[in-house]
């Protein structure tokens, strides 16, 4: 086997640039989450940023950009089935109605209305999900 028959030629400058971009997007997504956007927008934005970051890693670090066509094909196949699984299960989850609560809680509720224990409960007792909410002001 001769040397470097299917390995990719590294491009260090590009790697550094991607690194910078990844750091920037990490900062951005944390900053955005502090803005208290309405939840649907926050989720959309968060996932978009994550998608960009993942795309950069896959395309540059994993050399997917310029890889033999077979590999993207495999990944597209897997992604197709993954999306099917997610979509069908979510459709089923959303259309179903759990008893006593009426329609399922939809995702447009504001994050602060959550009833989880806050990061600073006073007692060490297990914070049950039913513990009273301690919402911060908007």
């Amino acid at each position, binding site marked *: *086997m001769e040397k470097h028959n299917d390995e990719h030629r590294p491009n260090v400058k590009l790697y550094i640039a991607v690194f910078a971009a990844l750091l920037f997007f990490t900062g951005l997504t944390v900053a955005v989450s502090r803005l208290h956007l309405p939840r649907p927008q926050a989720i959309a934005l968060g996932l978009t940023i994550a998608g960009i970051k*993942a795309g950069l890693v896959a395309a540059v670090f994993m050399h997917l950009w310029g890889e033999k066509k077979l590999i993207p094909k495999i990944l597209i196949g*897997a992604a197709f089935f993954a999306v099917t699984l*997610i979509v069908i299960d979510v459709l089923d989850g959303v259309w179903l109605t759990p008893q006593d609560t009426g329609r399922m*809680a939809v995702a447009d509720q504001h994050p602060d209305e959550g009833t989880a224990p806050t*990061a600073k409960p006073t007692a060490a007792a297990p914070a049950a999900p039913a513990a009273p909410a301690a919402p911060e002001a908007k």
Partner: protein
Amino acid sequence: MNATAIENPDTHSGISNAKLGVWLFLASEVMLFATLFTTYIVLRLSATSWPWGWDALNVPLATLNTVILISSSVTIVMAYARAYDRDVRGFRLWMALTLALSFGFLIVKAFEYGHEFSMGIGPSTSVFYAVYFTMTGLHGIHIIGGIIVNSALLYMSFVKEDWENPLFLGRVEGAGLYWHFVDIVWIFLFPALYLL
């Protein structure tokens, strides 16, 4: 058994066995994590309330971890670049740095878990924490797997015949692919659990 008898030179795809194998493995990993994210979405949508990461978890630590993991992705690709140029010292340096960063990630994670446990929060506390602990835990197991592979490569760079094996670079690339995938999973886990 000699290697050339097994490595059939006539590979139709033009992709080495090792690389193709790693990519197929990653395809199955995509399905694994897709399932976990399905669980996350379904449980979240059916929950009457869902805590916000800033209230329930330690976001600064997680941000630190994100930076650590992204950096380790860069260091491993730098290690690959050094191996490509047959620079064994450079390779060892970058690989060691990758390992240091991955241990750093685990240590930070351990602090996070420890803090949560000390407050009496565990996987059984609520569905949110069940999802959080399971997903980050499985991700952590993947990190440990990566540490094992990367340590093996670092060790092999000290063994002459391994370093000079023409398959070595392919192995580094395969390990890198896996490591980047683990990074990508975290890139999605971080906003999903902590920020949104």
